[in-house]
């Protein structure tokens, strides 16, 4: 769509892996787009799909979910799996709603993967730029 559209991304990051990964990206001075608004959550399993719907409704063009790697990284044993399953179903729900399911993205980012964090945010931002702004009616 428009070339100069800067997407707004709400990023829910788990306290143990993805947020630490984002921190590492920061202290390593890795460059990634400033489009994300990080929100610290205790675990990716804490992210209620209602949060994501509310974010999309209230102006976010995309929502990023960052959690610990499956199978064994989750600090709370299986929170990341909860996030994964909810994410899968929410994608289907968004499709029925007429919202492109690519507007939500789930990635496992460990505390050592600052580079991965920077990369996926870059990719996601590019993708959302292509999709254009989300017009809610």
């Amino acid at each position, binding site marked *: 769509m428009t070339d100069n559209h800067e997407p707004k991304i709400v990023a829910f990051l788990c306290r143990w892996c993805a947020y630490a990964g984002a921190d590492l990206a920061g202290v390593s001075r890795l460059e990634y787009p400033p489009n994300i608004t990080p929100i610290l959550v205790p675990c990716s399993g804490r992210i209620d799909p209602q949060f994501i719907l509310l974010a*999309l*409704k209230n102006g976010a063009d995309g929502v990023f979910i960052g959690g610990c790697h499956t199978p064994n990284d989750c600090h709370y044993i299986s929170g990341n799996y909860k996030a994964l399953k*909810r994410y899968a179903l929410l994608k289907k729900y968004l499709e029925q709603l007429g919202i492109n399911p690519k507007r939500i993205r789930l990635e496992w980012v460990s505390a050592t993967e600052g580079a991965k964090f920077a990369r996926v945010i870059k990719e996601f931002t590019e993708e959302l730029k292509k999709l254009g702004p989300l017009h809610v009616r």
Partner: protein
Amino acid sequence: MTGIKIAIVCGASCGGCDVSLVNLNEKLLEIAEHAEIVFWHTATDFKLEDLEKVDSIDLGIYIGSIRTEEHLELAKKLREKAKYIVAFGSCACFGGLYGLGNLSEKRELIKTGYLETPSTENPEEKLPGDKITVDSIDITLPSLTEWNMPLNKVINVDFYVQGCPPLSQSIEGFYRLVKDYIEKGIVPERGVAVTGIKTLCDICKRKKPEKIVIKKFRRIHEGPVDPELCFLAQGIICLGPITVAACDGLCINANMPCRGCLGPPPDIIDRAGKFISTIASLVEIEDEKSLSDEELMNIVQKIVDPLGTFHRFTFASGIFDKKQEDVEE
């Protein structure tokens, strides 16, 4: 206190709620002794002028959702005149089944309903809003509003009586509300659902295993259903966890899973969102590590029509209450 005035207004409704009101039986007579019904156009021949003529109404009961300009006018007029407004039935409270109409544009609905269905005979292609002459009298059907809306998106609502139609506890709660008002002039706090906030799972007597694990989703017609065991434990989607229990479990006692007609307890913002969280968590719980991420996602995505199932009665009051236009270019 004697002689309160009651008006019963009907919007987009199937008429079931009116029947449910009549089902108050003798209680309706008790109410009628102390109240005057000034408007009830489903029951007797009232016209809009009759509503306009009344100076003030004590209790306005609105049944059905808002789907036409006429409903909009009626609802606003009712709010103008009535001291207290009750949204009666799930359509008035949440938009009801009609809310799913918001998945289509208005023009698509009209096209299907008035032109395309095989049983429709409409050679002049007259649509709602067009003038028709029948026996030299001009009639105009009210035109549709852009979207289907629950009552509280149009006017302030004081009380909610949920149910499709309201039964047992809902209707008793409603009866107590009216009776207390007539006899003592007291009303509960505004916005209170007269049904309470317990969920169906709280009162359900089916056997529940220690851990409910869903290995595979199953629909009700696919094979036998154990009448004693929790539906979710059998892989059948039941909306019990997110539905207010004011029905005495009519459906689950008849071995049918809950469809959620009574609506969610008050702390839920978006019912589908909340239920996605509930149902997805139960899939292969504590056994996830034996499967790959893709396999897990596949099991969850086997659910047919999550929107229509989770939001069957509440789509018009969800966070996203209508079809969005977000197509890939």
